[in-house]
């Protein structure tokens, strides 16, 4: 057996929750991998605009064996897609470790807390607390923005549910949700001096891991991380740096003027423009950034956001060498018990063809 494989990370059936290790708050693999000190890799799944489970499986299949957890976005960019909670539930059925993204834009505290309990019951171990993009940037600008909570108070709310077994109202929860709690940070947006402090606030409110916005400016991240280390925040939360390939200089331009919070230096765009094959160059830049951020003290992993280029994630993770031969979870069809759900296996095979 591959010595880099940790059999204790895999239950009898891959969809079964694992026993929580001492000091762990969740029963999931992502927390295990991070607490063991491995360099973790997470990726973002592009949610389908359909009501078909196979669409989710097909999109998840490209990450198999290369990522520790898959983020299911919650209407990112305020655009409507299949819900995060449903995608996470589907992913747990085949054994993936999903990260439930919760945006404060669409539901109030009553809806959110109910969803956290439901998601946990469905086998979701990780939640990422986000404020969410404004409705103005999405496909339903006429929608009513909710923002009843903000990302920090959402963290505090879920921590109260988990650690005190109470709703925000103080009412008792009979079985609290054992979740690993995450938050986002954007070291690449103003006010730069406040960003590490804001991270500290989120950690104080309960964040155990952080996934950052796209990093295309490593020196800016280094400055941020230096401050983070001064404050010793990296000892209290795992920081996963957001990375992703740019398809072309044109896409890069479009992204930086239309996607909120994305900062792309001119040098990157120039480098893409000069390249013969812009797509290949975009991947190369991404691999280089992964390798550079890996060397920064306090960085615990990367979060790969390869929107519409998900098929390149495996290739980029492989080329960057960050897994060092470690193999995250993948389906093992020979494992006894796995084939119990024949219909699911067949569906997966069909999805693979389609």
């Amino acid at each position: 057996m591959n010595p880099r494989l940790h059999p204790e990370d895999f239950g009898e059936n891959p969809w079964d929750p694992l026993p929580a290790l001492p000091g762990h708050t969740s029963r999931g693999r992502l927390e295990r991998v991070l607490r063991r000190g491995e360099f973790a890799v997470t990726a973002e799944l592009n949610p389908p605009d359909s009501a078909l489970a196979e669409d989710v499986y097909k999109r998840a299949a490209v990450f198999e064996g290369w990522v520790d957890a898959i983020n299911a976005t919650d209407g990112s960019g305020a655009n409507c897609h299949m819900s995060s909670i449903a995608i996470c539930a589907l992913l747990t059925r085949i054994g993936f470790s999903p990260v439930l993204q919760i945006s404060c834009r669409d539901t109030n505290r009553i809806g959110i807390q109910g969803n956290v309990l439901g998601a946990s019951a469905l086998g979701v171990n990780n939640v990422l607390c986000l404020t969410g993009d404004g409705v103005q940037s999405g496909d339903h600008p006429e929608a009513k923005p909710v923002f009843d909570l903000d990302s920090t108070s959402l963290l505090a709310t879920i921590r109260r549910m988990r650690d005190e077994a109470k709703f925000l109202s103080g009412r008792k929860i009979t079985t609290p949700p054992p979740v690993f709690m995450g938050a986002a940070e954007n070291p690449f947006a103003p006010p730069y001096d406040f960003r590490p402090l804001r991270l500290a606030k989120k950690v104080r409110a309960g964040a155990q891991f952080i996934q950052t916005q796209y990093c295309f400016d490593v020196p800016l991240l280094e400055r941020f991380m230096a401050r983070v280390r001064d404050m010793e925040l990296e000892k209290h939360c795992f920081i996963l740096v957001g990375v992703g390939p740019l398809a072309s200089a044109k896409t890069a331009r479009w992204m930086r003027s239309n996607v909120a919070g994305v900062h792309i230096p001119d040098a990157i765009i120039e480098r893409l423009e000069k390249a013969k094959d812009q797509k290949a160059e975009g991947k190369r830049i991404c691999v280089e950034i992964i390798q550079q951020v890996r060397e920064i003290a306090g960085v615990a992993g990367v979060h790969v956001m390869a929107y519409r280029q998900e098929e390149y994630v495996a290739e980029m993770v492989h080329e960057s060498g960050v897994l060092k031969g470690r193999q995250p979870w993948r389906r093992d069809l020979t494992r006894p018990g796995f084939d119990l759900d024949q219909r699911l296996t067949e569906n997966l095979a069909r999805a693979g063809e389609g």
Partner: protein
Amino acid sequence: MLRVPAAFEPPGKPPRPRDRFALRFWSIRHAGGLARFYAAFERALVAAAPLAARLGWTRLERPVAAVERTVKGALFDCRMCGQCVLSSTGMSCPMNCPKNLRNGPCGGVRGDGNCEVYPEMPCVWVKAWEGSRLMAEGDRIGDVQPPIDHRLKGRSSWLAVAQEKSGTGGAA
């Protein structure tokens, strides 16, 4: 402060004249003085609490809220959320944030420090950070604020503070 020119560029919309927010920004520039004034004002409020209790908190609610709305509306574009956190947010009212964020900026702040949703408006939290640096107790910007209580909207936070700090509360 560190500036990064190539970050999120607003797509071609000229910003509206800045004087629309002139008074709000004046208050932030003078956050230090206002915080001192506010501390003295709070002491006066607490001292007046027994009198207020005799007059009846409920009877005072409407006139005091009206005064508070006028004064704070002019100085801070106050939205009368009824649970004022100005002293923790550098005298920049967080309810002017289109996402009503009370704990810090979102990740969508533009490279020029303007709002993701309203490209012509400087981010409420960029301003809050500037203002907090001028205040003696500016580090209170790091306090984790609880979720807002929507029942208190429109009510006077001055009375609430006087009631709470003097311990004469109860009959609200």
